[in-house]
C-alpha cells in the first residue's frame, strides 16, 4: 500500500475509532441511566414558563454573510497552494496574488457600502 493511500486509511481508522468510542459511551449511558417518563419532562425548556407561540419562525438575518463566506472560503482554496509555492513563484506570484486579493477586497468593500454588513 502506498503512502498516499495510508493517509486516507489513517483518517478512516480514526473516524471509525471515534464512532466506536461515541457508541461505547452512549451504550454505557443506556445501561446506567434511569428512565422515568413523565409528560412534563418532554416540553421544550424555555426558562421555566410554558412555551408559547410557534416554533420555527426565525429571521435569518445573516444569510448574506454565508454568501460572502463562500466567496472567501473558495479564495482560501486557491491561496493555500500559492502560499506553499511562493518561494519558486517569486515576484510573479506576489503580483498575481495581489491582484486577486484586491479584486476580492473590492467585493467586500461593495458589500460594506451596500450596507450588507450592518445589522438592519
Amino acid at each position: 500500500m502506498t503512502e498516499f493511500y495510508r493517509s486516507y486509511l489513517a483518517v478512516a481508522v480514526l473516524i471509525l475509532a471515534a464512532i466506536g468510542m461515541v457508541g461505547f459511551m452512549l451504550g454505557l449511558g443506556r445501561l446506567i441511566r434511569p428512565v422515568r417518563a413523565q409528560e412534563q419532562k418532554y416540553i421544550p425548556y424555555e426558562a421555566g414558563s410554558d412555551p408559547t407561540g410557534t416554533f420555527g419562525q426565525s429571521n435569518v438575518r445573516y444569510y448574506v454573510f454565508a454568501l460572502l463566506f463562500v466567496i472567501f472560503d473558495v479564495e482560501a482554496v486557491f491561496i493555500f497552494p500559492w502560499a506553499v509555492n511562493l518561494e519558486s513563484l517569486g515576484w510573479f506570484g506576489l503580483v498575481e496574488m495581489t491582484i486577486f486579493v484586491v479584486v476580492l477586497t473590492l467585493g467586500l468593500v461593495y458589500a460594506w457600502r451596500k450596507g450588507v454588513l450592518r445589522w438592519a
Partner: protein
Amino acid sequence: MNAVALTTLGIEIGWGAALAIKTLVILLIIPAGALILGYVFLLKMMSHMQSRLGPMDPGGFHGWFQLIGDGLKFVQKEDLMPDGADRKVFAGAPAVVLISTFLVFLVIPMGPDLVVKDLDIGVFYALAVSSLSVIGILMAGWSSANKYALLGGLRAAGQLIAYELPLLLAVIGVVIQAGTMSLNGIVVAQQQQSIFGIDWIGNPYILTQFVGFLIFLIAAQAELTQTPFDMPVAESELVGGYHVEYTGFRFLFFFMGEYGTAFAFSAIAATLFLGGYALPWVEGDLANWIGPLVLFAKLMLVAFLMFWARFTFPRLREDQLQAFAWKFLIPLGLANLLVTALFKVAF
C-alpha cells in the same frame, strides 16, 4: 507509550500496529485534555479570578472533586428528548461535534516521529475537520424544536463561518513563511529558519507572525464560542443556546467537544507559532522523548491566554461580533497575508 518510543526501546512493530496504538492514544487525549483544561482553567483559574467559592469547595483541596462529581451526575441523568424533536438528528448532533474534535489530533505532531499521520495538507486538514462541528451545532439547534436552541444554533453558524476566514488567513501567513502545509514541516522550518540572519533560536513564528498569532487567538476564541464571543450559548439571553435540550451523556459530549477543541486549537497555535514540540538545541531521540512535554507546556500557555480572556471580558453583541470579523479581522488578515508574501519574496 507511543509507537516510536517503543522502537527506540528496540521493539519493532509494523505500521498497522503503530497506527492502532496511535489511534488509541488519541482517543485518550480528548477526555484527558478536556479534564486537564477543565481542572486547571475552568475550576482553579476561574474560581480565583472571579472569586467563586462553589467550585473550590467539594473534596477539600481546591475542589478537586468538583469535575468528578459533575461527571457522575451526567452519568445518572435521564436521556430526555423534547416532544417535537427530530429524533435521529437530535441524537446524532453531539456525536458529530465530538468526532470532528477527534479528527483534528490526527495531524498534530508531539515529536519528530510522534504523529499519527503527518499529512501533506496538515494545517488545511485540521482547519477543515475542526469546522465540521458547525454541522453538529446546527443539527442540535435545528432539531431541538426549541426557539432558544434554534436561535443559538443560527447564531453559532453565523459566528463560526465569520471567524473561519480570519483563522484561515492567519494560518496562510505561517504557510507562506514555512513553504509547507505539513505541521511537522512547519515545526522543522521554525527550527531551521532565521530572523534576518539571527538564527540562535530559529524562527518561532510568533515573532515574525505576531499579527497572525493575535488574529488566530481571537478567531479561535470565537470558534470555541467562549466569552467575549459566547452569544450562541449565552445563558442570560438564550438559556443555553443550541444545547439547552440536551441531558446526560449527550450534553457531556458537547462539553468534551468544547474543551477538546480548545485543547486542539491551543495545540495548533503552539505548533504554528511557538515552535511546537521543538526546543532549541534539542534533536534526535531526545526530542521524541521530551517533545510531548514541551508541546504540552506551550499548549497550556496558549490555553491560559484564551481562558484568561474568557474569564475577564464581558460579552459582545451579535452585530458587534459580525462587524468585528468582517470589517476588522478579515481586512487585517488579508493585509498580513500580502505583507508576509512581500517579505518572503523580497528577502
